[in-house]
């Protein structure tokens, strides 16, 4: 948490130090602290189209290492679309086209001969609705390590499964029933299973698309705690429709509006003194 706060701070610093901002195009509409030093991921002028329809307009933003960045905005504003362009999940959508650069550790993930399989192992994803495979709990977690050949032996695999479940805070609840179907768990447990599944391939970044929107408040609280713990080891981008959730879990918050990134600022600032009037209108509930 501390580390992450520091990252957010460094983001703030860049603003007060215009030197580091030199190469940034200041004509962009986005206000706030979009960029940081040594970003884990950086997006430059990202445009996303569904056929002829443009869903994302010129979004440029950095995500610092071990940061939790929340993306908020009215529904249909393109949060999911933007998130899915960060691990090329949009490739699976017919007619979806992404322009601009998305850099992971400085390398463009949209370059011609990039291995999408490897990319998605590095940038994992958790979906809105828990979607465990119709397999046992064990097989759900072992799925990724198996296809990527991460485990050399059964013992290795057992270790990975146990480790991932522990990191996802699910181990104690399921250790007796690892070979029962994952679909038999409660909604909250299923979502943590999905998080464990994503962790199992040791990604560097985890993308979460409204991971709690199908869960009850108690399960939501558990996931939020989990996100905080995970931020020590992973970089997390989370889409949420709940401003309270953004306020609780994230270090920085990005506000999207009609496909444009309006404002990116440290979370506290966004919720107390938003820079842009659209952001203010949204967080004060004038639309959403």
């Amino acid at each position: 948490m501390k580390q992450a706060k520091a990252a957010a701070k460094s983001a703030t610093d860049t603003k007060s130090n215009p030197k580091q901002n030199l190469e940034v195009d200041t004509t962009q509409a986005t206000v706030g602290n979009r960029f940081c030093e040594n970003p884990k991921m950086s997006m430059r002028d990202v445009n996303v189209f569904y056929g002829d329809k443009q869903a994302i307009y010129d979004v440029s933003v950095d995500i610092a290492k071990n940061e939790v960045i929340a993306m908020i905005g009215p529904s249909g504003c393109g949060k999911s679309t933007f998130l899915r362009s960060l691990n090329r999940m949009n490739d699976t959508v017919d007619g979806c086209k992404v322009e601009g650069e998305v850099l992971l550790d400085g390398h463009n993930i949209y370059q011609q001969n990039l291995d999408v399989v490897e990319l998605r192992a590095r940038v994992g994803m958790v979906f809105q609705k828990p979607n465990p495979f119709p397999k046992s709990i064990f097989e759900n977690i072992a799925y990724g390590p198996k296809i990527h050949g991460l485990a050399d032996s059964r013992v290795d695999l057992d270790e990975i499964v146990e480790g991932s479940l522990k990191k996802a805070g699910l181990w104690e609840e399921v250790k007796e029933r690892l070979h029962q179907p994952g679909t038999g768990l409660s909604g909250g447990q299923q979502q943590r299973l999905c998080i464990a599944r994503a962790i199992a391939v040791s990604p560097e970044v985890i993308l979460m698309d409204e991971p709690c929107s199908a869960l009850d408040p108690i399960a939501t609280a558990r996931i939020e705690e989990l996100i905080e713990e995970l931020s020590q080891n992973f970089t997390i981008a989370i889409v949420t429709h709940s401003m309270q959730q953004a306020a609780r879990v994230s270090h920085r918050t990005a506000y999207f509006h009609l496909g444009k990134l309006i404002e990116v600022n440290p979370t506290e600032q966004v919720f107390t003194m938003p820079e842009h009037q659209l952001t203010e209108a949204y967080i004060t509930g004038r639309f959403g």
Partner: protein
Amino acid sequence: MESSNLFLLMLALGACAFYIGRGRSLAIASPLGGVRHLHSLPNYYGLNALLWCALPSMGLLILWLVLDEPVINSIVMGALPAELVPSTKADFNLLLNKISNLADGIMSADGQPAFMVAAAESMAGLRVISQWVLTAICLILATIGLYWGWRRVAAEYRARQSVERVMENLLLACACLAIFTTVGIVFSVLFESIQFFRSVPFFDFVFGSDWSPQTAIREDQVGSSGSFGAVPLFVGTLLISAVAMFVAVPIGLMSAIYLAEYSSKSVRTYAKPALEVLAGVPTVVYGFFAALTVAPFLRDLGADFGLTISSESALAAGLVMGVMIIPFISSLADDVITAVPQAMRDGSLAMGATHSETVRKVVIPAALPGIVAGIMLAISRAIGETMIVVMAAGLAAKLTANPLESVTTVTVQIVTLLTGDQEFDSPKTLAAFALGLMLFTVTLLLNIFALHIVKKYREQYE
């Protein structure tokens, strides 16, 4: 009045009832201040009146039509002097038939014994009376129903619920009808089979390995006792079905996977119906394709490799049957694969799995129960298929596991047993029922097995 006219008349009465009931409810509603003051919508009052008018009278009509002939027959036959009534059942039915034909005027009365002509006259008279009584009762019932339906229209009458209840019972009745029909067929087959097992021991039939269903027409004929061992037939059925499934399962499944997972939308819109057309080809067409094209081709091909393939072989029949079955498997499998939620695929892809890994490890396992069900259905279909086998696999009841030889199947034998002149109660004819019963049992067991598998995987995968 003719029954069909009566039926139409009652439909018309029902329609009247609908409008009268509806009209009355509207008339009641308007002084109250509109339809919303009625308990139910006007259409429900109309429907209620219609049901009251039509259901009881139609029920009576159907019951009457089923029962009137046996009743009249027994009255007529009962009135005959006892010494004229034949003692055997067959003769009795013959006489009854003659009288009935006389009564219908199909047979001329010239030269027939006087008692028969008299009986026929009384039968014809009874029929006319029965028809008039039926017409009268039906009309009265319908009118009473109409009146009753009309009377009951009131603002607080719950026509909606009452219609609901009747509908529920109607649906139940239809379901029962389907079940009773099946049960009826099974029992009739069962009774004939029991009769068959009186002359041929059950175990000789089920485990016997020799099938040559000749029975003597004259007592002194040679080879008068046939042998009824069903094993070669079931082995033949199994062999051909196995060949068919060997063709149909891989091809069907893979084309389904291609269609559901890989094909573009435009390919799919044309390819899927095209595949389904295969299911619409009449089996007799497949049959002559098998007999005239595939079988000779296989024979010649075999000859080139030094294999003797008989010109009617299990292989030819099985291959063509497999092609026939492909659409069953591909179409069903395609449906279940498409029904696997996109979230499953997304989950797998987001883990960094490739498309084919996703299909193999996530989509297919999730769709497995449906796929298995489809395959089982296809097997039932293969076992029951007759035409292709008649034309392409021959009639020789050989006990062999070699698909290059000619074999015969249960269904083919049933056909040959029942075609041609035979006494109905000879073992040869009755054997067809026994075979049918066994076939039914096997298919039933297969279906139960399939259901079991589906359930087992359900538990595991949902």
